[in-house]
């Protein structure tokens, strides 16, 4: 009896320890998953690199950008995969929509964090304290509004239509949080705050519709961004933008860089950025293709 008792204690004390019970060698599918998991494990710890130094981009230039409020034209991708017939349609770009980008504030981060600047938007809840420790770090609150929804009557809006989003960005273009304003009823909208955690970064920079920025891992390949997006910004797309939003619109032909990467969820994100501009010129992901109205900073275009 004395012999059994110590044994029992040993066994039970192991019971809360992890069990090495699952075998990844069950079949080819589990083996593949195991290998992919090990590879993903090895991929961790990549050194973050901001796109800012590659392209001489400065968040502060949002204050000097012309026009002050600018537009991003977004072509949603349409697919008919869900159709309940044997037909499967291809993916194509549908009619463009204009989103207005405006800067609510662009200031030293510590003004948001320590001095209560724009306190009603609660920026100090999302910008990390560390940003306040360096007086040169700058932060911005940027608002992106769906111009079509803005002009629609409340009766035409549908539940969860995303009316606008407010982005909390630092000078490396890291997005710390997004406030989405969603339509609920004619008398009520709701604001949903999504915080992008430091260690569990959920979106690739700004990856929410209708804007997408490269993730912090992005590496830009120098070149002319327009060349990479020609097939999307085709004659029809240019025609549509000119007809609807800007008669003088022309694709921007600039030097800059393009990054193509898969985000953490496997989705392709491709961003084209003109050198020295505070906002990307082109973006493509699984949901849309977008092009920014030509911008200039100060006097230069």
């Amino acid at each position: 009896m004395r012999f059994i008792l110590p044994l029992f204690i040993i066994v039970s004390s192991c019971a809360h320890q992890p069990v090495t019970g699952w075998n990844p060698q069950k079949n080819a599918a589990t083996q593949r998953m195991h290998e992919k998991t090990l590879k993903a494990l090895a991929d961790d710890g990549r050194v973050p690199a901001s796109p800012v130094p590659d392209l001489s981009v400065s968040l502060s230039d949002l204050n000097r950008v012309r026009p002050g409020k600018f537009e991003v034209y977004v072509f949603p991708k349409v697919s008919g995969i869900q159709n309940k017939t044997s037909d499967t349609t291809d993916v194509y770009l549908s009619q463009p929509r204009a989103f207005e980008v405006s800067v609510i504030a662009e200031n030293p981060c510590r003004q948001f964090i320590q001095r209560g600047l724009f306190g009603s938007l609660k920026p100090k809840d999302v910008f990390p304290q560390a940003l306040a420790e360096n007086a040169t770090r700058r932060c911005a609150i940027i608002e992106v509004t769906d111009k079509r929804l803005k002009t629609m009557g409340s009766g035409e809006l549908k539940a969860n239509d995303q009316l606008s989003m407010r982005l909390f960005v630092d000078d490396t273009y890291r997005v710390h949080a997004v406030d989405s304003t969603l339509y609920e009823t004619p008398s009520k909208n709701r604001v949903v705050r999504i915080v992008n955690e430091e260690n569990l970064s959920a979106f690739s920079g700004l990856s929410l519709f209708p804007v997408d920025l490269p993730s912090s891992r992005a590496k830009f390949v120098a070149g002319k961004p327009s060349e990479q997006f020609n097939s999307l910004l085709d004659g029809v797309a240019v025609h549509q933008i000119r007809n609807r939003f800007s008669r003088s619109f022309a694709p921007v032909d600039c030097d800059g860089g393009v990054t193509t990467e898969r985000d953490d969820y496997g989705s392709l994100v491709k961003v084209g950025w003109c050198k020295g501009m505070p906002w990307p010129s082109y973006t493509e992901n699984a949901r849309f293709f977008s092009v920014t109205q030509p911008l200039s900073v100060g006097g230069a275009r």
Partner: protein
Amino acid sequence: MRTLLLALFLSTSALAQDTGGFEITKNSFKDLYNQHRIAQPKVTPWAGNFFPYSSKGTAIKLDKDGNDDSAGRSPMEVYGVLARVGNEAHDWEKENHSCDNLTGELKKSCESWWGHCNGWAAAAIKELEPRKPIKVGTQTLSVAEQKGIYTELWLSSASLNAGWTDKNKKTGAWVHDHNRPSESYKMFWDVSPRAFFLIFTNYVGAQKTGVVVDRFTGDEVWNQPIVGHRFLPIRKEDISQVRDGSRSYWSALIRVKIYWANDLGTAPGHISKPFDIKKVKDTEDVEYFGEDYEGRYLAFRLNFDQELVMSANGTTVTSVGRMIGDGIWEHQENSRQAGNLDETHPDFIWLPTDPIQDYNGNYGNPYMDASVVAKISRGQPPTPSTPTASQLRLIFPPRAFGGASLEAEDVKKAVTKVIRREAIKHAIYLKDIEISRNRVLVPVRFPQGVNSKALESLFKAADMDVRIE
């Protein structure tokens, strides 16, 4: 069709095993599980009828209670009266959303499962359930008629999508052939456990919006709007450490029950009962909540780079690392050659965004108009539509289509490819297309009229010379 599917898959194969068009804004397993383990959309999607093609879709004649009645009127007929398009919407439906013109295997498929389930599923998420008749001008629309109109409107919608499907390959032993994954195999398994978990917890959980799943994992498509999910407690025995040399990760068996609104056998005029995910228990048994809702139990593995530690009752994550890799479905891990996996994980997941039609005269009813339906839903008589239906003859030089031996179907596709970019409602019939050495004539019907000058400049922008008569 298989060629098309293959090409599609090749061009999008990189999307395999990801969250597709869904935007994932939270990925902390701890937060997602703890905050959204049990969730349902803010507005419960309603049970409805999928208006099968075998009954002529929304051209089916119904009485005021929504029962079949050859002396009654169809949802499209009453829509036609209100939208002032006469019988066009009804006639188009009868012609195009029925199985009458099909033969062989297609006809068989059509009669057994084709219908408007995607239209209903999208409408059930985006439109409030019509629960009583509504008066619009001189017309009183029954619940069935309102649901029929919504269902037709949303048949072809813009949406966020994750996952692909091959509707042309019957489910067979190939789904178990893990050693030689074919293209169809990849489409079968491409909604990974991680994508499933992230989409459900981010959308149904955090955003409290509905999503639609294709609950038939194989070749058929059964779209169902999700009314709730409940992840079951994670038990100690569900968690393992997996070691491979000096490397290791943590693997956890995650169990979940998902519930959706039903459309099979649901009468067009049916009014849904409430659904409450809190009544679902933390057991693997799938509860029965009446004919309006149906559920399914699923299990899968997710992997983490640090130990997953749960509270004593398994309902709260105490600590865990990052999710690593895509995970694996339990039924993929344990699949057997003879097993039928058609009713397992969602074949694809999607979320409707806009009630656009594809307007090519084949799928979406080109006589539907979202703004008209919006007015009907508010009980306001739609204003008379000023533009009237028209037919134009588009005449192209053969070089506009690449010149070489042309088929009417290629011509139709090329023309539609341009017109659909502007979402102009139109219908092209193959029998109307005339191809000769000098010209290609394409008669196009425009249910709501069209500005021929604008159309001409659109084709010019697409680098296609056209003369319009």
